[in-house]
């Protein structure tokens, strides 16, 4: 798994629960690594062990933590870049949803060895969408649920989200767009320069 993903988990745990908890997590996962490098690759099972350990140390279910991680990634002011890159997907939330198929390719364009789960969006009419998510590590779908919740808010859209894991391990997210102009939403300027 790419270091960016492990590093994201580390940042999430440190910023949300503190460095002490991170120390307990790496100890509990029996990892020699304490600091993940964003631009290095690690074994896939390191990520799984990390996530299990966070759940154990915090006493919270894995799916809840993964959703929280998704929320963190697009809402923390430290990672404003992630939110911005996602907003490149479209002018409206619907357009953004339809652009999700392109997300793994776009990510690869930036970091060639970053393999995000394969995403497939399906428009079901009446504001209903289905997002299929196939990844090497299960539970990624929950991260997207957390991200989608924040991004919908960013666009000012009101959505209902549901998650389901199929027998074949493919995760499905059901998105119901209740009101696309529910709130003002946040300003997004394509040409704004960061920092």
């Amino acid at each position, binding site marked *: 798994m790419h270091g960016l993903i492990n590093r994201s988990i580390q940042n999430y745990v440190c910023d949300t629960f503190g460095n002490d908890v991170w120390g307990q997590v790496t100890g509990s996962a029996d990892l020699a690594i304490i600091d993940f490098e964003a631009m*290095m690759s690690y074994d896939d099972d390191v990520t799984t062990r990390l996530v299990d350990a966070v759940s154990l140390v915090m006493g919270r279910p894995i799916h809840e933590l993964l959703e929280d991680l998704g929320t963190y990634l697009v809402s923390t002011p430290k990672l404003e870049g992630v939110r911005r890159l996602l907003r490149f997907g479209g002018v409206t939330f619907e357009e953004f949803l*339809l652009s999700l198929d392109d997300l793994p390719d776009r990510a690869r364009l930036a970091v060639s060895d970053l393999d995000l789960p394969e995403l497939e969006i399906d428009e079901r009419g009446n504001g209903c969408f289905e997002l299929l998510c196939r990844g090497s590590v299960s539970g990624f779908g929950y991260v997207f649920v957390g991200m989608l919740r924040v991004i919908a808010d960013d666009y000012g859209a009101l959505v209902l989200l549901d998650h389901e894991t199929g027998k074949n391990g493919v995760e499905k997210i059901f998105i119901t767009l209740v009101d696309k102009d529910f709130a003002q939403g946040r300003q997004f300027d394509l040409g704004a320069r960061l920092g």
Partner: protein
Amino acid sequence: MTSLAQAGMLDVLCPMHVLVEKDGTISHAGPTIQKICKTGALVGEAFFDRFAVKRPKGIVTMDDLRRKAGSRLHLALEDDPGSDLKAVLVPHDHRTGSMVINLSFGISILDGVRDYALSNADFAATDLAIEMLYLIEAKSAAMDASRRLNLRLQGAKIAAEEQAFTDTLTGLKNRRAMDHVLARLVGNQANFAVMQIDLDFFKAVNDSLGHAAGDHVLQAVAQIMVEETRNADTVARVGGDEFTLILPDVATEQMLLAIGDRVIERLKKPILFQGQACKVSASIGTVWILENHTMDAKDILSDADVALYQSKKAGRSRQTLFRRNGARV
């Protein structure tokens, strides 16, 4: 403007467009899209015989397609079902019902250029495709350089850690250093003793009072061991709560046992951490090796482990001197 002049204009502005009549027949194709469709001329063929609409799903007739005018489509070439082209449709002539569908590689530009051997001339002069390709190539080169640097630094860091002889938490020697010392003494067939010391109840301190308390206890224990041994002795932390002492030139059994006793006595007293009393104790297994022996390091450590196990079994906070016949002190 004649339709011929119009087509010529579109060929320059959008070299990847096709002009489609109301019934779905392609009546004109831009030079680049024709170059990509290798299986023959597009003109005269039905649009849906040469292109498939991948997304939105369910678009199979010209009427379906017309309804999507102005929005982004994903197409694949029937020649190459793995291809992924972006497209947008605009009505062309309201009287005849013809339409223009303009295509682009979108994100798959790199594959497109490679697979179809395209050059600058195949893109409109205003198209950012070439800038995009330039950016991808330049960025990849920069990224590779940075990745190589990362790997080199990581390698250097691992090498430095491997070469280190010090346990960073306690300042004692580490297992690697201990192995070196032991190997030297074994090689010289010297007179020396090895003490394996395990902290009892350390995990309970860690679990109940936290890692910070645990770290403090390890540092305090290390200090005590250094104080109770001679300068020539080696004190190493070889595991989480495991220590090994190597004592060269042991004169008498009494002297050896006295060191063990002092360590055990001092570790019986609780160690204070932020006002909390952390209680641990030490179990010790000792092997005394006389000069001109023929034992190897592995056997010596294993004998010390046997003695340590006996101390633990006998109720902890005590020491056992290994003897060939297994008798305890």
